[in-house]
């Protein structure tokens, strides 16, 4: 038997299904995105950039893309601001407490997004728990409007995605030599200086990796914006869904999906480039 044969045989089944179930559908979607759609005649077998031009020109889509990436940036920043300190605090906890807190923070990742989003709908709805409590205590007289607002979507997405940030930073912190902090202190650095000059630069790769995951997942989030945003606050993913399953304009939906995919890939690739250039000399 040739030595190069076994690895291809071992990979063969998986490669086959990936080609049949991933490459072919993706290529077909790409082709579909160049077709046009007639409200009466359905999908037409012609090719052109018109779907892409429509997305680029129409202010309706501008607003949707701006909202999607605005939400993604906001969610990523908030996740950094609360997730990174939480990971640091976890790393300084006693072992028992730490495993309990980790379980509480990472566990929700295993619970369906739909359940977690429902929790927020119950909390922030007009008849929701927060309004019920605030009205009951007498702080407010009319219910606060939080459901169907961008703010509500951001908070819920932070909740859904912040575990990824904690996990990412926590993994980096674990690789840190605890004596390095002691070394900085012994050389006369204050606790704050140690945190800023010694700990933070070392966890930056973790923060960046976490940001990447959070950003990409927020930009393509569907369930949370759909349930908490309602019909009017559309994002890219819910727009593609509507084009497919309500308007039935598959070619336009496909074009939106392709743009979303390309944007995601560009962000991930340029991030990897950046990290490689910046950290290759420093970290393993």
């Amino acid at each position, binding site marked *: 038997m040739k030595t190069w044969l076994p690895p291809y045989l071992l990979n063969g089944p998986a490669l086959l299904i990936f080609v049949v179930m991933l490459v072919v559908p993706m290529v077909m979607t790409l082709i579909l995105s160049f077709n046009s759609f007639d409200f009466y005649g359905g999908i037409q077998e012609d090719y052109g950039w018109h779907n892409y031009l429509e997305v680029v020109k129409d202010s309706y889509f501008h607003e949707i893309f701006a909202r999607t990436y605005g939400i993604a940036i906001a969610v990523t920043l908030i996740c950094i601001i609360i997730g990174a300190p939480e990971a640091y605090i976890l790393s300084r906890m006693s072992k028992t407490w730490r495993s309990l807190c980790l379980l509480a923070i990472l566990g929700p990742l295993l619970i369906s997004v739909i359940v977690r989003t429902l929790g927020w709908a119950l909390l922030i709805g007009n008849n929701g728990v927060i309004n019920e409590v605030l009205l009951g205590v007498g702080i407010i007289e009319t219910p606060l409007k939080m459901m169907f607002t961008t703010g509500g979507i951001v908070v819920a997405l932070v909740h859904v995605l912040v575990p990824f940030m904690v996990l990412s930073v926590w993994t980096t912190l674990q690789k840190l030599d605890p*004596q*390095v902090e*002691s*070394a*900085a*202190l*012994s050389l*006369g*650095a204050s606790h704050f200086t140690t945190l800023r000059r010694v700990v933070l630069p070392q966890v930056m790769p973790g923060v960046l990796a976490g940001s990447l995951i959070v950003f990409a997942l927020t930009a393509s989030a569907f369930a949370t914006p759909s349930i908490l945003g309602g019909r009017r606050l559309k994002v890219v993913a819910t727009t593609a869904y509507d084009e497919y399953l309500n308007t039935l304009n598959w070619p336009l939906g496909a074009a939106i999906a392709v743009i979303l995919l390309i944007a995601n890939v560009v962000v991930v690739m340029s991030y990897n480039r950046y990290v490689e250039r910046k950290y290759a000399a420093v970290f393993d």
Partner: protein
Amino acid sequence: MSFLTLQNISKRYGQVAAVEDFNLSVEKGEFVSFLGPSGCGKTTTLQMIAGFEEPTTGAIHIDGSDMTHVAPNARDIGIVFQSYALFPHMTVTENVGFGLEMRGINKPERDQRVTETLELVRLAEFADRYPKALSGGQRQRVALARAIVIKPQLLLLDEPLSALDAKIRESMQVELRNIQHTVGVTTILVTHDQAEAMAMSDRIAVMNMGRMAQLGEPFEIYENPGDSFTSNFLGTTNLFPGKVIAVKGEEVSVDCSGTEVRVQGKSQTGAELSVAIRPEKIGLVEPGSGFFDARVRTRIFLGTSWAYQMDSDLGAFNVTLQNTGHLVAGEGEMVGISWQADAVRLLGAG
């Protein structure tokens, strides 16, 4: 008053005592080692001197001022950590300059002192590298440079050579000792390696189970170990348990499993104790002409010496003979055992 004094230091974690009633005075410029097995409290003691742990009781003074509760970043102590704890995101220069920067020293002076120190540790040409691109020995020297560049009152070395290969470790021992002499800084070394402690220190504090077992110069405690723990931790020792049958002035006769052994020392008739003799101080003579006879069980050639395991009426014991170029007694042969009168020590029962 001594430069560094530890007075009645204890450290307890709940019911567990890590360090118990530890006293030590170190003179300026002195090199003292804490030697002991893991868990003996030597690292905890170092952590208390550094300020990372607070003693449960007792006081620490450096150069006359009470440092017991001073924060680690205000103690002016240079530390070389076991893992080196270099800042991976900083170059060698930035690593070494960090402590000077924290002291608000301006850039020109900082650069000059960093350069001088890197020359001292022979790392000048690696100044712009990141720690990742250095070998273990080089990282170790960066850690040392970073600790001494701030001209600390006190230098603490926490198992600094334990991560190095045997060969580099030996050359680093000499280098470290030389640098310490050049700089003249008072130094505490924590180690579990008795050869390292003996090679480098002015004095050794042997520690066991949170307490100081013995304190003294390397030669002195090697030759006159206070107890069986110290005598076995520094080198190896043959111990023959026995009972004192007669005391004549400075000469004690001990009955070891039926054989009478005479030892110089003090004791009283009827006391249960051990006769201790180091393997390299035993001589082999013709059978019947020594104190007693023994049979060679195994003989191993080590290049500079021969290592014997012997069986005798007193029990099994070890002998080390210098290799003089002549063949010596082989396995299974009977030999006589002798030694110089002052080579034997009496140790408490154990």
